[in-house]
């Protein structure tokens, strides 16, 4: 790829890593929950696989974003970059922090909500 184009795509991916990783985490967890809940009812009632998957994937996603946030902070500390690059790094930093918070927030239902089954009044009473 023409070097400037490649550089720009890389910058944009770094800048939006926070919400991008969050979105991927949400989609993967939604898919995992759907697959888990398609299993026979007895297996589906056990939330352990989802807790493990959610925790492990969450840790990887948060680790990635923590790396991205630290990278942006390191770039910001160096004074040689242009205004545009500093802007991109500042946005990357803030969106990275936002992404980490969003992942934790979105993962909470794995801990707090029953895994499968349509929610009914009877099911709500049994929680």
């Amino acid at each position, binding site marked *: *790829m*023409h070097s*400037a*184009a*490649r*550089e*720009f795509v890389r*910058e944009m991916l770094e*800048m*939006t890593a*926070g*919400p*991008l990783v*969050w*979105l991927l985490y*949400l*989609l993967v*967890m*939604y898919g995992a*929950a*759907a*697959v888990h*809940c*398609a299993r026979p009812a007895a297996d589906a009632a056990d939330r352990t696989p*989802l807790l493990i998957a959610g925790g492990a994937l969450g840790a990887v996603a948060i680790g990635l974003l923590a790396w991205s946030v630290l990278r942006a902070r390191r770039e910001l500390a160096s004074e040689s970059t*242009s*205004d*545009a*690059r*500093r*802007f*991109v790094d*500042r*946005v990357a930093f*803030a*969106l990275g922090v*936002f992404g980490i918070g*969003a992942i934790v*927030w*979105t993962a*909470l*239902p*794995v801990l*707090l*909500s*029953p*895994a*499968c*089954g*349509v*929610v009914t009044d009877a*099911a709500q009473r049994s929680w």
Partner: protein
Amino acid sequence: MSIPALHPLPRPEGEVEQLREVWRPPGGVRFLTVVNNTYIGIFYIGTALLFFLLAGVLALAMRTQLAIAENDFLSQDAYNQFFTMHGTIMMFLFAVPAVEAMGVYLLPAMLGARDLPFPRLSAYAFWAYFVGGLLFFCSLFFDLAPRGGWFMYPPLTMKEYSPGIAADFWLLGIGFIEISAIAGAVEIIVGVLRTRAPGMSLDKLPIYAWAMLVFAFLIMLAFPAIIVGTALLELQRAFGWPFFDAARGGDPLLWQHLFWFFGHPEVYIIFLPAAGFVSMILPTMCGVPLAAYRLVVIALLATGFAALGVWVHHMFATGIPALSISFFSAASMAVAVPSGIQVFAWIATLARGRVRITVPTLFVLGFLFIFVLGGLTGVMVGLVPFDWQVHDTFFVVAHFHYVLIGGMVFPLFGAFYYWAPTASLRPLSERLGRWVFWLLFLGFNVAFFPMHVTGLLGMPRRVWTYSADMGWEPLNLLSTAGAYGMGVAVAVFLVDLARNFRPFHDKGGAGDVWSAGTLEWIENSTYGVRSIPVVDSRDPLWAHPDLADCTEAGAYFLPGTATGTRETLVTSPLDGRPEYVVQLPGPSWKPFVAAIATALAFYSLTLEMVLPAFALGALTIAAILAWVWDSDRGPARPPVDVGGGHVVPTYAAGRLSHAWWGVAVLVVVVAMLFAALFFSYLYLRLVSPDVWPAATGHALPAPAWPIATAALLLASGAAIAWAGRALARRRPGRFGWDQPALVLALAALVGAFAVELVGQRSTGLVPQHTSYAAVVYALIGLQGALVFALTVMGLYTLARSLTGRLGPVRRVTFDNTRLLWSWAVVQGLVMTALLHGAPRILD
């Protein structure tokens, strides 16, 4: 302090006259062939307003029907058609086109460009929308309008329950209009990233351009899902492929997933540009820069991503597992954070400045009040238990009108009043504007606030009448009175337009009547600004009060026409460095003919006139090929001095070229189409394993078939890469291996498609039998459509090569074709792996 002139002033005599001559619109009937954004943008906005009026009339008819209990003003069937057409027109033919049109009109001036990078594409998108939209509306006069609601859920919209062709009008008409929206998005993405004024780096980009960038990315990512959805439902209605028929392994919920993966981002697609209007109007009216610019950019980006992750909140009542809906409930509530950031930034801007209460300010304040209320009820319906209580009631109708009218219509009217002086010799009237605002604001709240209560009292949406003893009558009467108030507001606005709006003048508009800070307020003619200014601030006209005069005097880049043709400067995407001058195409009948033919082809298909549809399809392709034939002019001119000793080329190929970026956006659109079908395959496998081969015993094609497909695809990829290298080495007038390599690549690509199709058919797989078979053929069909497009593009590239229009330097056509080709190879390989691997691995 001024920005120094790049060359001596005054400029030579005749320079500006030449510029004007090059950009002069054609007269008489050829005026229809104009392509530049100052004309197409206003046509577009006018057409969107027309659809707003038409859908508004339908709304008034519905409100008249509901004003009193057991009314018979409209029949049940007419009411069903009216609410379907009202929602569909407002969302697809007014809201999205209106904000896209404002972008087409405003962005070049705001970015300091002479036009958008693909003017003929804008013209094509507009005419396709204009003709297609009017034909769609006319279905109402022939009792052919759809009745399934704006989201057209199956099973209601399946052939069994919606016979006739009314639903097909929706499916083909709307699917086609989405293509027009995507064309606009390509323009906007490439325009914002590549045609900014020198020095306008990303940190100095007007906030509206950021909003439009996120808007266009959302269109690119979300609209393919609805195109796939409409295609699948049409395949089911026309040919009996059972994607949504539970008896044959389909699932109506698949439609809801595809629809809402588009439908929720659609809300932000409408809202984000409107938020961009607000972020531009407020600083001007307060006389201070926007507070927390960077945080607002962050909020726009976060909202854009969040928009893609909340579609299931429209499906809380469908029986999806508890955990799944909890994820989306959490995500939906998280959207409040970036939305809140924007609201607080606007409040802070208001607090910092001295607010001028003008008509645009009133509309912005009205927006803040209404949108915050709509946002709060949005958080309420984001809570699953509350959502269940109010699902399908008038509470939801109130909520989304607060979001959509508050979040989009109020800022849009504010934007009309604010930016009208850039287009019209006279600004719109402040006096009439205040009448419009107060009538609209009061009318809106009187119409829609009571609906919260009507909904809580249990009135379902979409009922054509109700019994007097339900107790809903007084509230409904109030809502109807409010709706008529809104109608009067719109009528006053039309009077204002008729009295004061005078566009299409050589001089541009009335000028900077608000003392604003951004570039669109520099005197703008058909050719845009006289010279393209250097930008070193977010509010350049405030930072340099003489910038407008210097720009007008020709002090900066491209003060005349450097190439003797229409042109603009292409700059680097991150920091806005000049890279090359792009020669832009001028007026032409070709995009006009292509657009009309496309629209008529789709409607011929709806009316089951297959032969005319094919003829019109062929005419479309011919007109498009004729239009692009002279687009790649090659480096006919040497590099030119664009000002201040900056000498840049007049041609660029490969990844530097803006055209390559346009095709890259198109590749993402195609990838999203494929992703939507890929998801459909996995979804149907999850919900209906009993129709998959392991359960039915249906044999899969023998492994030799996918191996042959993959080998042919790889061969095609290798051959196209070889063609690229051969083209780079080719000498003028000599034989090059690029031509045989291209033929070989094409043969292998078509062969791979044929092998896959024949392989599946050889097992006796029939698409009408099961959802498995249907989705297999749908995936192959998408690949087939891509192979067809590449066949046309490949033969076109070959024709250019044979006529001496392709070479080692003049190679944009080849590079663009190769980019899409590479994706076709990747898509083919992934599809082959899915179709042959998934049934073997998953089962």
